């Protein structure tokens, strides 16, 4: 047992810190700190800076232009990036589709799509969920029918994150309506400029536009955009879901969030004293901090296992459940800390509106974030689904 980083890892941490200090644009970091919406340009600018350093596709093998970082290195980056208020790397290409193409895609697909992810030519989004297929993803109905050199796609996807910025979408589609649910699904790459693709915004309860509906009406997709074999898409989707499961706990985000809560509670007056000195509030903050310290170590234990080549299975589900609960608790503390100042509605949707919103603690829209982050326990397999997986794996011997 040794809880400390090796000299190499410490040097790596220092390198990341220096890079973030020098190369992370201040205007972007400030937006992240105050939970403001990032523009497409902000995100592309950050991607380009990382790519110039060779650090954009952190988990890819060097042969594909990746950084080939270990799980521990990735953890170090995630922690430092969250502390420095760097934007999250948009995961759909780099963490999700990239590894699938590297494992199951053809040489042509790899040569064509992977470099375009790195240089920003393509912005990918994910077409999995449907209105009737959420937790029960395998019941999806969007269908693709083979017609000569093309598939004809009809149906609707939903909760498509940042679909408004994307030009490409990877989709799960039903190619065999007669097969058992999981067996008739294929993995298809679709150009969103194709006639018949329509993106409709979904406005979330905090006023943000980050997810969309994507509709397909007789969309022609060339057969060379099929990944792997027809009707094997579920296998690839599951690989995608289990491949990139580290960082799920959001430890870095939680640590940054807790720091913000303490800063706000130090500035907030409660009966003539800082709120952070109030025993009741301080106790609640301390409980979260105690949980978080243990979770940081749990996270590292799982990362070590992954680094040793073991695929994290139910531990990933545990991290997601515990991590989302902690992050939501921190959001709750933040909205409580600002007191009555939680009520104003700060919105990117209203031009110039944020300039008029009083923000005495320089806290950003903490109440909006409290509501927005209810998604953490819903998306990517809800906490109920994760608990089901944990129970199934531990009590019936297999998922």
């Amino acid at each position, binding site marked *: 047992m040794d809880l400390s980083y090796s000299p190499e890892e410490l040097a790596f941490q220092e390198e990341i810190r220096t890079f973030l200090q020098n190369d992370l644009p201040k205007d972007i970091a400030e937006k992240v700190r105050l939970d403001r919406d990032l523009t497409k340009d902000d995100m592309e600018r950050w991607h380009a800076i990382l790519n110039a350093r060779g650090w954009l596709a952190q988990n890819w093998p060097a042969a594909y232009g990746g950084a080939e970082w270990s799980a521990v290195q990735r953890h170090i980056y995630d922690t430092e990036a969250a502390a420095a208020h760097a934007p999250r790397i948009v995961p759909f290409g780099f963490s999700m589709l990239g590894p699938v193409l590297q494992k199951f895609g053809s040489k042509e697909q790899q040569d064509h799509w992977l470099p375009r992810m790195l240089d920003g030519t393509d912005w990918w989004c994910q077409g999995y*969920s449907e209105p*009737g297929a*959420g*937790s*029960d993803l395998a*019941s999806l109905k969007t269908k693709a029918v083979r017609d000569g050199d093309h598939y004809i796609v009809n149906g609707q996807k*939903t*909760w498509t994150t940042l679909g408004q910025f994307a030009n490409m979408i990877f989709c799960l589609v039903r190619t065999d309506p007669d097969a058992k649910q999981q067996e008739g699904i294929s993995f298809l790459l679709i150009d969103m400029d194709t006639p018949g693709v329509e993106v409709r915004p*979904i*406005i*979330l*309860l*905090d*006023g943000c536009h980050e997810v969309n509906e994507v509709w397909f009406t007789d969309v022609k997709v060339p057969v060379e955009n099929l990944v792997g074999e027809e009707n094997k898409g579920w296998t690839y989707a599951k690989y995608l879901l289990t491949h990139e499961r580290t960082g799920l706990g959001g430890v870095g985000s939680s640590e940054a969030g807790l720091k913000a809560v303490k800063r706000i509670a130090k500035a*907030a*007056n*409660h*009966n003539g004293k800082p*709120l952070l000195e*109030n025993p*009741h*509030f301080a106790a*609640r903050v301390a409980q979260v901090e105690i949980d978080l310290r243990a979770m940081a170590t749990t996270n590292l234990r799982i990362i070590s296992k992954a680094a040793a080549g073991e695929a994290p299975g139910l531990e990933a589900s545990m991290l997601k459940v515990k991590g989302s609960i902690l992050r*939501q608790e921190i959001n*709750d503390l933040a*909205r*409580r800390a600002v*007191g*009555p*100042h*939680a*009520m*104003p*509605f700060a*919105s990117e949707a*209203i031009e110039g*509106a944020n300039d*008029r*919103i*009083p923000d*005495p603690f320089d806290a950003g829209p903490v*109440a*909006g974030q*409290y*509501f927005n982050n*209810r*998604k953490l*326990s*819903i*998306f990517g397999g*809800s*906490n*109920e689904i994760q*608990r*089901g997986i944990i129970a199934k794996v531990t009590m019936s011997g297999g998922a």
Partner: protein
Amino acid sequence: MDFNLTEERQMLQDTLRRYLREQYGTERRNQILESDTGFSPDIWAELAELGVLGALFTEDQGGFGGAGFDIAVVFEELGRAGVVEPVLDSALIGGRLLAAAGKADMVEQVIGGALHLAVAHGEPDSRYDLDHVNTTASDGKLTGRKAVVMNAEAADHLIVSAKDGDTIALYLVDKGAAGLDIQGYPLLAGGRAAEVTLDNTPGTALGLGLSDFEAVNRLAIVAQCAEALGAMDTATALTKDYLMTRKQFGRPIGTFQALAHRMSDLLTEMEQARSAVINAAGYVADRDADLHLSASKNLMGRIGRLVAEEAIQMHGGIAMTQEYELAHIAKRIIMADHRFGDTDYHLERFIALSAA
């Protein structure tokens, strides 16, 4: 012991519930939410006509109710429909302060829906403390800053608290008075508020002090608890319906025990919440009113959070969308905890009052 509403209150509840069900659906409310004023003058006039505003005042004050249970009945229905019109701030707090000051003419106008008020008490660092006032009054001129003042832009008059020497007193300030600056903005859960700055602004003393303000604040706590209860009832009903209709894995999701048990817990907690509101309304004029009110506000804050979060979680993604009814209702529930003292504030006050 009788837990039934009186005939008059039952009629008021039925009338208001029917009216809001017919006139205040999600679509209408979303139009109101997006309007520049943040509330509908038509709805306001109709609420006055239905006697909803009059029910907040005693007969002596020109109304026909005014007791804890009258207030609770009105606000539970407003909460059930997610009403964003400023009944609580303009009519109840503003109107009852004017009534306490003996301004019978103005109260009559409030009850008739013709007069709008705003109460400017909280300051940027006062949090939930009622006695934290830095705005000063000198020779009838007020100077200071007031934060998150509800309905300030629409108000004909502001009721402003200020310190004259060591004493907190309330003043009536006309809209458009010299040195009065109002910077408005929308609120997360609907309606509008403003940052108000007073710079040697003339005000007329109302002859009211902190204890008068505290008395009206007790009524406001009853109203806020009842409003949250109505909203929580809607959230619970929407969730129950959704669990019985939404199918995944070939069956209604409410048939999964993990969700069924949580729904059962919500329904149980809702009974506790209803009792808390009855306690608040029943004891608001009691000698121990503050202890009862703190108990109720604390419990409503706790159960409110549980209901809002569980309702969203059990719905899943759909509850995250602005156009679904629950989104607005959940925001009303949570934001109720940011007014008149939150869960923690009232826990501490309960501890202090119990020990006394």
